[in-house]
């Protein structure tokens, strides 16, 4: 990717590329797969360096820590309007933000470690939900019932780390069937993600949903009734 294109991509991701140049970049992206790959990496790196997530994380952590220390939330950082020229400073700024997050996180952990009683004041959130028995010691089907058998939410629990390292354990054809059936009930933006994912060309052939019975091949005007 040339320096000029890199600059265009960066400006576009920041919403600062003029419309005329945007059209040109779009056309280039549409026909240049290598550029799209670079673009994707650049977008991810940009998010990390800009600290879009870190900013919110910092604000949340800082507020909680300040609340715990002196009862006053931290002030949200003022929005800095970034000009196109200021883009070159972002890697440095990103490192600074990351360092800030690390520092705040350490403070937060220390605060938690020395104040175990604070947990009693924490409102009911995910951290406080009980683990299913299977995640502790008992089998899930041995859970005691509560309140006439309805699902329950309980008092103390730490969310387990997701086993993201688990290899693909669901047969692809079955997975496709599950996703397609679920997408009917998924909510707005979530549904978009599922549909968009189905549109994307697979790196490996997409397993199609297996059908219960063979269907005749109708013309579009005379489709088979269910």
């Amino acid at each position: 990717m040339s320096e000029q294109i890199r600059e265009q991509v960066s400006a576009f991701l920041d919403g600062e590329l003029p419309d005329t140049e945007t059209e040109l970049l779009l056309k280039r992206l549409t026909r240049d797969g290598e550029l799209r790959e670079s673009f994707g990496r650049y977008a991810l790196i940009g998010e990390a360096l800009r600290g879009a997530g870190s900013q919110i994380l910092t604000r949340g952590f800082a507020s909680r820590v300040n609340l715990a220390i002196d009862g006053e939330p931290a002030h949200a950082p003022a929005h800095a309007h970034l000009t196109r020229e200021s883009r070159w400073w972002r890697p440095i700024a990103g490192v600074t933000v990351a360092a800030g997050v690390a520092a705040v996180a350490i403070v937060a952990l220390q605060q938690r470690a020395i104040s175990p009683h604070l947990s009693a004041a924490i409102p009911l959130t995910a951290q406080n939900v009980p683990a299913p028995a299977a995640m502790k010691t008992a089998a899930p089907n041995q859970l005691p019932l509560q309140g006439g058998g309805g699902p329950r939410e309980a008092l103390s629990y730490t969310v387990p780390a997701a086993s993201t390292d688990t290899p693909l354990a669901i047969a692809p054809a079955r997975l496709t069937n599950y996703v397609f059936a679920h997408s009917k009930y998924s909510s707005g933006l979530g549904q978009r993600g599922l549909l968009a994912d189905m549109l994307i060309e697979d790196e490996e052939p997409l397993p199609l949903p297996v059908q219960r019975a063979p269907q005749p091949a109708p013309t579009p005007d005379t489709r088979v009734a269910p």
Partner: protein
Amino acid sequence: MTQPRHVLAYWLFPCALVGALLSTIPQTARGADDPRVWLERMNKALATRNYDGTFFHISGGRVETMRIVHRVRSGRVTERLQSLDGSGREFVRANDELTCYLPDQHTVLVEPRQDRGPFLGSLPQFDATVSDFYRIEALPDTHILGRPARVIAVNPKDQFRFGYRLWLDEKTAMPLKTQLCDSHGQVIEQIFFARLDMPESIPDSDLAPTVHTDGMRWVRQGPSVDNASAALAAYRASQLPPGFRLTVQGAQTLGDASAPASHLVYSDGLATVSVFIEQSSSDSGVAAAPDSQAQAPMQGLARVGSGYAFSTVVQGHQVTAVGEVPAQTVEFIAHSVKIYSGAEIPHH
């Protein structure tokens, strides 16, 4: 899935009541800057306006260029979502049907999809229930595509659900950029428009698929009329993350399965998780072929788009949870599924 029992009414009615009350409050009373007002404007724009745009979908470092065309004419909505890169796949929603053109698979899938939101997605009203588990806030205004934009963040209050950030056009409230984020604010998936037109009218030709269907296999996914066996219908999640409730229960035959699966849908009002309980091959008495992966018990996690699926075996039945939620949520729910005796089956 048909004949879903009206579990929805158990909790949706109070939500709808609160939502209706909220909707009766004039927007001016809640303030034009109220992020909830902006989300309502966005939902209305997505559902009622004509638009034709090209956007990038970025997930996991992959970028795909897609085109969306949405037309509302005489109260009827027609939509077309098209991949402009490689696969040539297209979705067209018209006349309460979703048609998926998969040219690389030489297949066209047709499925009834009644009363669903626009392809680009909308967000439900932020009633009291949703507000318990998501925090909505307005972030500083900015510019995108050279246009002033409002930035709204919908942050999950725990790790069991994802949040969103939306950049809404100041003039039209259309989402020019959206991000799906985890509870730490890290971006999981995002889309942003490179071009967005909102014409007065859109010709039929712009909504017609470009895929040539000659020789392609047409598969119509009809609604299931099956009922799950009593054994499968007796399964429920015994524990749920905060805010999740059973909203739909029914049965659906998945693929070439010999018997319908029980299908449960749990939702917190924004995120949804489906749980499928299937008869195992040993229970059905059908011996699986040695090389048949479809009938083999499954155990573990899989990534599906921006969500996850987790499968496990409970008392000899295959239990699979799928949803646009973090991995631990599908794991949590799947692991908590248990069988109840008839009188104890929870209906919420």
